[in-house]
């Protein structure tokens, strides 16, 4: 292990000229190219030597390097195969200065790179399309949002600016990449040989920085997405004056809960938002709903650090919940002292007609399902009292 030194590969994979020069300079410093893992290049510490490194694309793509017909011929002529970068760029080296260059005819070399050049062109077109689609998504998000644009920018500023920066960064990076790739190909096509670069710090810094910046922005965008959804939902809830179940359904669609998003509005029997006592938990985090014959408690959390709080809240909500079969005129229910009460419309489970009462005091919730036999009115007061005690 001590004999190996790992280094970050600081160029774009297709930046052949800079990469060749970098490998040669490493060899001059006593670092012999050995293997790679992703962008981490492993060097073996040896005596400093003069060595030519060349990167070639002949031999097709493959996990195990170029075809043996290529490596055999190259080896016969004095060029040793070392490793392959990105399944495409095969690295060879030669210690004998008398051995002819790997490619002596730039035009033929360009011909061998033609396939790769076309592939890269397609990749660049896809990249541009990706940027356009992304931009379209950004615009449509603003256009379709019920929240005014100014507020969207305020509540989701991190996401918004990371998106815009990412788009603005992707374009010049794409253009630079396209320029480097095309420049190498077209110079070869014109009959110019590839040069040995003496200074490649600029290319290395630009490539590494752009990659790191892109990763940072993607992470920022991903994390800030959760924050933005939570913020937007809070805004929606704070301004809501109508039926709770409607908010809940909208919210679920907004939260892209796959299972619920498959439900039709008519399938949605009952829903409720649970405002918690804790300021740490976002109000939109907890949703209680019933679907079909089974009761589910569904917990949504949009901020990853709230995962444990959400599961604790789920636990607290589950245990004080009771179900009873009762009969009573619902208009007579009293829930004095409770923070909130919600009475669902009638719905059918099998042959049974049901309605549901949900009472909330603080974070305590009781759901009472009526199926036509017992006195709901008596139970309602009892539950309200129980909840108030629990709250105290």
């Amino acid at each position, binding site marked *: 292990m001590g004999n190996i030194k790992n280094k970050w590969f600081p160029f774009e994979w297709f930046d052949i000229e800079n990469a060749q020069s970098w490998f040669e300079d490493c060899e001059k410093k006593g670092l012999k190219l050995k293997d790679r893992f992703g962008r981490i290049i492993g060097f073996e510490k040896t005596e400093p030597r003069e060595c030519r490194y*060349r990167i070639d694309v002949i031999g097709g793509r493959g996990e195990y390097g170029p075809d043996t*017909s290529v490596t055999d011929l190259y080896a016969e*002529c004095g060029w040793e195969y070392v490793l392959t970068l990105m399944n495409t760029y095969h690295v060879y080296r030669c210690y004998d200065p008398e051995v002819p260059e790997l*490619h002596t005819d730039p035009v033929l070399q360009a011909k061998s790179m033609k396939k790769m050049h076309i592939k890269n062109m397609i990749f660049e077109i896809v990249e541009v399309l990706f940027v356009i689609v992304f931009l379209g998504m950004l615009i449509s998000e603003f256009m379709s949002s019920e929240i005014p644009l100014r507020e969207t920018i305020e509540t989701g500023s991190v996401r918004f600016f990371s998106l815009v920066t990412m788009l603005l960064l992707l374009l010049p990076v794409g253009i630079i990449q396209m320029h480097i790739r095309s420049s190498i190909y077209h110079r070869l096509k014109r009959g110019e040989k590839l040069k040995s670069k003496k200074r490649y710090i600029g290319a290395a810094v630009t490539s590494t920085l752009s990659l790191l910046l892109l990763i940072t922005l993607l992470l920022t965008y991903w994390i800030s997405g959760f924050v933005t959804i939570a913020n937007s939902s809070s805004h929606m809830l704070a301004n809501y004056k109508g039926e709770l179940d409607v908010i809940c359904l909208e919210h679920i669609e907004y939260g892209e809960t796959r299972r619920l998003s498959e439900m039709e509005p008519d399938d949605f029997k009952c829903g409720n938002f649970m405002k918690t006592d804790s300021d740490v938990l976002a109000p939109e985090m907890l949703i209680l709903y019933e679907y079909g014959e089974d009761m589910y408690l569904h917990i949504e959390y949009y901020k990853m650090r709230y995962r444990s709080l959400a599961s604790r809240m789920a636990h607290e909500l589950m245990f004080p919940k009771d179900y009873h079969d009762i009969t009573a005129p619902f208009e007579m229910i009293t829930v004095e002292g409770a923070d909130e009460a919600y009475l669902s419309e009638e719905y059918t489970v099998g042959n049974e007609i049901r309605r549901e009462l949900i009472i909330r005091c603080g974070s305590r919730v009781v759901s009472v399902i009526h199926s036509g036999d017992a006195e709901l009115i008596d139970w309602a007061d009892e539950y309200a009292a129980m909840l108030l005690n629990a709250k105290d």
Partner: protein
Amino acid sequence: MFYVLMSFLGGEKCGIEITEYIRAKTRGRVSLGPGTLYTILAKFESEKMIEETEVVGRKRTYKLTQKGKDAYYAELDRLRQCIADAEEV
């Protein structure tokens, strides 16, 4: 490409023999790298102008086909014609 075809006129050859033949024939004026040679050989092989005859270890030997010979002599005629045209000036 012409010199590669020419190198096979003397018989079967492997990669290094081809490059050495060309260097000697041109007195060092033309030097063929293995990358360039491979591109040419692959092209000739796909066009059935040469064919592989033997693989011993890392050494692959090729020989000229009739189509390859025809192509060589056609190119030779073309070059002769070019020189004749030039000498007429």
